[in-house]
């Protein structure tokens, strides 16, 4: 039963990670920017839901309000900083987003205080297999909402004009520009959409786990890891990779101990990179 519990916990957790990672993959693919501030945007989204909760509004409404506010925060960050580094070296953008990350941490600490906070959803618990497997409904809700947003996004990217423009820019920004796509607008929208996804994830995290101004980095690392494994522009890959990572983390926690949880994620990242390199080198030999 422990295995079933670990698998289900891992899947539910992984779906949430995948949502954050999808935002990162989208923006990385379109703008070639690795956003170190991804986790901090998530936490900011969480605070929006938390403040709604403080003012007596159910935090679940945060999944609607938080992405709307975060979209505009994303646009603002793009206009102020990202558009100045979007065509530059990848290293510059990493530095810029690292700076944004530090700034956000400090501003959140200044504005919201350094206390660890959470929003209680009061959703209760689902018991399965003769009460041997326990799933908090808040985690099930989080996974459901994450899937819902992912599906909406995929449809939007396929059907809408802006979605098609974003995909075109990701494939070849120069060609898209020549064909009349306003890439500047596309970049701003992409960054906004990513921030909105972080807003959704943050609201879900505030009702599932805890939030704190300095808690963003683990989410950045996990989404980076998922994108590295799944590749860019591959939503099913990101979803599978997210769930796989979630299950792997839960099992590592049970078998090796909680202290090795994050360490095992890094180990897995190294193993996957080595394996990929090995596979690539074999392919190259074959091509010769």
């Amino acid at each position, binding site marked *: 039963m422990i295995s079933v519990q670990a698998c289900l916990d891992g899947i539910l957790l992984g779906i949430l990670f995948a949502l954050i990672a999808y935002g990162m993959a989208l923006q990385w693919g379109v703008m070639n920017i690795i956003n170190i501030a991804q986790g901090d945007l998530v936490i900011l989204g969480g605070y929006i839901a938390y403040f709604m909760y403080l003012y007596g509004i159910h935090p679940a409404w945060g999944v609607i309000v938080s992405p709307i506010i975060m979209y505009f925060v994303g646009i603002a960050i793009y206009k102020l900083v990202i558009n100045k580094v979007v065509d530059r070296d990848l290293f510059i953008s990493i530095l810029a987003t690292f700076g944004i990350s530090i700034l956000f941490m400090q501003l959140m600490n200044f504005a919201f205080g350094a*206390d660890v906070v959470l929003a209680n959803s009061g959703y209760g618990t689902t018991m399965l297999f003769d009460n041997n497997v326990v799933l908090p409904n808040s985690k099930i809700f989080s996974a459901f909402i994450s899937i819902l947003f992912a599906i909406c996004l995929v449809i939007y990217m396929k059907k809408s004009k802006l979605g098609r423009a974003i995909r075109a820019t990701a494939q070849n920004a120069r060609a898209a520009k020549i064909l009349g796509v306003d890439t500047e607008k596309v970049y701003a929208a992409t960054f906004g959409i990513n921030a909105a996804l972080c807003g959704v994830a943050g609201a879900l995290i505030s009702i599932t786990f805890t939030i704190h101004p*300095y*808690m963003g980095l683990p989410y950045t690392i996990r989404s980076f890891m998922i994108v590295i494994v799944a590749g860019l522009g591959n939503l099913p890959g990101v979803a599978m990779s997210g769930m796989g990572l979630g299950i792997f983390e839960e099992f590592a926690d049970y078998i090796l101990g909680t202290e090795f949880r994050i360490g095992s994620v890094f180990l897995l990242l190294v193993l996957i990179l080595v394996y990929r390199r090995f596979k690539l080198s074999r392919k190259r030999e074959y091509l010769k």
Partner: protein
Amino acid sequence: MKIKNIIITFFSALALLISTSTISFSKVVGDKIILGAAISLTGKYSSNGVHTQNGYNMAVDRINSMGGVKVGGKTYKFDIIYYDDESNPKRAAQLAERLISQDGVEFMLGPYSSGLTKAIAPVTEKYGVPMVEANGASRSLFTKGYKYLFAVLAPANLYLDVAIDLAVEKNNGKGVTVAMAFEQDAFSQDVRLGVLDAIERTGSKKVIDDKLPKELNDMAATLVKVKQMKPDVLVVSGHTKGALTAIRQIAEMKVDVPMLAMTHCDAAKLSKQHGKNSQYALCASQWHKTLTYKDDFFKDGMTYDADFTKEFGYAPPYQAAESSAALLVFKDAFERANSFDQKKVRDALAATNMQTFYGNIKFAPGGQNVDKPMVLFQVMCDDGGKCENKVVAPTKWASAKLIHPIPSWSER
């Protein structure tokens, strides 16, 4: 051109001379005893840093308004120079250096947290500056042979061993099974060592010994093990994150355990954030307002609580109370030393034996306070959902009877 250079050099030298001479005031200026403190006013410890600062300020105002410090027949008043250490140990050490070597401070108050105190202690030791600290409980601070470090609080290893004793007592003196989950930081690991000692002393058995990561926000794996192993006691220490995460997930996963003991419930505002879900949790605390210790300045815990709440608009957590106590210790030591000589004040501090509203204070050779036991309170809620912390151990201070075992979730 030459004359111009000479004039510039002359004025630069003069400016340098004036600037260095104005900032190098000594520890006593006029009728003021200047203490130095690096406090976390920003960064991740800023909440508790502010509690610490409020505690210091409250005591300074109180002591000054009640006659100040009498040394050599003259009355002095306390004043504190604060710097923000940004919750960063390196910065804290730099600021301690600055307070001592640039600002001329000769007596220091401690920062918030064991980690920052560890960073500052070598600096104060190097310069022979007596430091009374109120927020560094890690055992490792008191095993390094520091001569100028004095802590008014009980060391970390004493935080939760009372809980194991209590569980054994409830089990008719027989050993119990213990599940442990401790964060990997100096403080929590010291708490763990204390619990391990208690386990060995009482013939108990540890069944789970998990180390929680610093970026902890999910304890589900540990709690599943707890559900399987059914221990008699679950002990958790992971600062406010640990306390909040544990209560949330224990409630969500309906984990039944006869006794749940943890640290930092006060700082985590457990009963406020989790309401009835936090009911029955046992929490280690350095101080509680209902304790009956007394002094001339704050009278007792209840009066301190009322006065602090009036001044700062919130009830004092123990971090504030122990910070206020640090000033009372300094005042007592200055008056007994009857001098501002650092060595004499240090010796007077080492010989401290007093009672404050916060508790008895008597320092061991390592600098830790050995005369003040920890207290355990239990979160108790009424039918309307209003929760209160009530002291249940040690029995001498208990204001309520321990509820044990904790009713199962199906009965709640």
